[in-house]
C-alpha cells in the first residue's frame, strides 16, 4: 500500500478559507442558509467551515446540522457488511431554507442522492447546493456535481482518497492511497 500527499496542511487551510469566502459571496449573512455536514466524515469539514465563518469572517447566526444518510442508502443488504448508522443532529426545519450539503469527498454521488432524500424529512428546502473538499473526477454514477469544490483530482478505481483532520487524525491533510 503506497500513499501520496495530495494536499498538505497549508494547502488545506487556504482551500477552506477560499470555500468559506465563496459561501459568503453567495449567501451574504446566512440568514436563510443552513449548513449540513454529511455523516460520517463530512461533519468534520462542515464544523471547520462553520468555525472559519464564525471566527475569521465574523458571520453570526450560522445554522449547522449533521445528517446521517444510512437509512436512505441504496445499498442496504447489498454489501458484505451491515450499514452502521451515525447520529443526525438537525434542530431546525429546512423549510424554504437554502441548504448547503458539505462532504469531504465526492465520488460516485450516491451518498448525495441519499442525502437529497434524507433531508426531505426536515422540510422542503428552497434550494440545495453541494460543497466538497475533493471532487473525484470521472467517477460519478449519477448526474451530481458540486457547487463549491476544493480540489478536483483524477483517481483510478483501486485508489482511495483519505482526508485527515487535526481534531481527529492529528493533521490536516489529504492523501491518495493505493489499495
Amino acid at each position: 500500500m503506497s500513499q501520496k500527499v495530495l494536499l498538505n496542511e497549508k494547502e488545506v487551510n487556504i482551500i477552506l478559507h477560499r470555500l468559506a469566502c465563496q459561501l459568503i459571496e453567495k449567501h451574504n449573512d446566512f440568514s436563510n442558509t443552513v449548513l449540513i455536514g454529511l455523516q460520517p466524515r463530512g461533519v468534520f469539514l462542515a464544523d471547520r467551515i462553520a468555525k472559519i465563518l464564525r471566527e475569521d469572517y465574523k458571520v453570526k447566526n450560522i445554522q449547522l446540522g449533521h445528517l446521517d444518510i444510512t437509512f436512505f442508502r441504496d445499498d442496504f443488504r447489498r454489501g458484505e457488511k451491515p450499514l452502521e448508522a451515525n447520529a443526525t443532529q438537525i434542530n431546525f426545519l429546512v423549510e424554504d431554507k437554502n441548504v448547503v450539503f458539505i462532504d469531504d469527498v465526492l465520488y460516485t454521488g450516491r451518498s448525495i442522492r441519499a442525502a437529497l432524500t434524507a433531508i426531505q424529512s426536515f422540510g422542503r428546502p428552497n434550494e440545495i447546493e453541494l460543497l466538497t473538499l475533493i471532487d473525484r473526477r470521472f467517477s460519478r454514477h449519477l448526474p451530481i456535481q458540486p457547487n463549491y469544490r476544493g480540489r478536483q483530482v483524477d483517481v483510478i478505481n483501486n485508489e482511495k482518497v483519505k482526508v485527515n483532520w487535526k481534531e481527529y487524525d492529528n493533521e490536516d491533510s489529504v492523501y491518495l492511497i493505493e489499495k
Partner: protein
Amino acid sequence: MSELSVNHLLGIKYLNKQDIQLIFETADHFKEVINRPIKKVPSLRDITIANLFFENSTRTKLSFELAEKRLSADVLNFSSSQSSVKKGETLIDTVNNILSMKVDMVVMRHPNPGAGVFLSKHVKASIINAGDGAHEHPTQALLDSYSIREKLGDVAGKKVVIVGDILHSRVALSNIFALQLQGAQVMVCGPKTLLPKFIDSLGVKVETDLRKALNWCDVANMLRVQNERMDISYFPSTREYTQQFGVNKELLDSLNKEITIMHPGPINRGVEITSDVADSKQSIILDQVQNGVAIRMAVIYLLASKIKQ
C-alpha cells in the same frame, strides 16, 4: 461489532450482551428518526413482513406495524380469529402459505411456548417472537431495559423488582434474562401462588412483602394479573391482591427514595397500580410505548440486514 449474532429474535436467552448494545445504539438513531417532522426512512423498501397474531394484542401489534411502516416495509396482517386456522390448518402450513407469497420476515405471537423456535426450524424467513405463551416476549424486555437506560443512564448495577403475576408472565422471564445480561440485579415480588417454583434458580431475589421490595429497588416493573391465563383461583380476591401488591401514591411517598415505575400494559387501573401513580412523573409507562417503536425498528432493521438478496 455491527451485526447481530442471531438470524431470528426468538428470545432474550439467545442474545449476548453485544447484541443488546447494538440494538440500543441502533434504536437511538431510530428514536431520532421518529421525532422528525417526516418519520419515515426507506431502508426496507424491498422487504415484506407478515404479522401473525394467534393471540390478541393491541399495543405490540400496533407498535410492530408502525415500526415496519416507518422503515417502509410492506406489511401483511393476520389474526387467527379471522383465518383458516379455525378450519384446522397447522401452523407450518399457515406460515408456508404466507411465505409462498414472498414474505421475508415473520412477526409472530402465539399462545404456545416455543412456537417461534419451532417455526424458525421449519420455514425460511427471519422470525421475531412477539410473545409465545408464558415463555418470552423479547422486544418488550428490550424496550423496558432501553427505557431504564434512558431514564437512569445505565442498566448495569441497577436494582429492578418485577411485581405481580410472575407465573403467567412472558414479560417477566424476558426481563429477567435481559436485565441480568446487562448486569442489573433482579427481584420478583408477588403472592406465593403467582411465583413459579424454582424461580430462585434463575438467580433472582424473591420477596413477598411489597414495601420491602420497593425500598430495595431503583425501578419497579408492575405486571398485570393475567386472569385470562388462570384456570384456578390464585388469590382470595382482587381487593386483597390490591391491598398487598398494588402500588399507590401513599406507599410510594412513604419510601426512603424516589423509584421509577414501569408497566408493560395493559394497565388495570386500581388493581396493580393506581391512576395517580400511573400518571405521575415517576412513571415512564408512556416512554416505554414510544421506545417500543424505536426498539422494534432497530430489531427489524438489524435482522433484515442479515437477509441476503
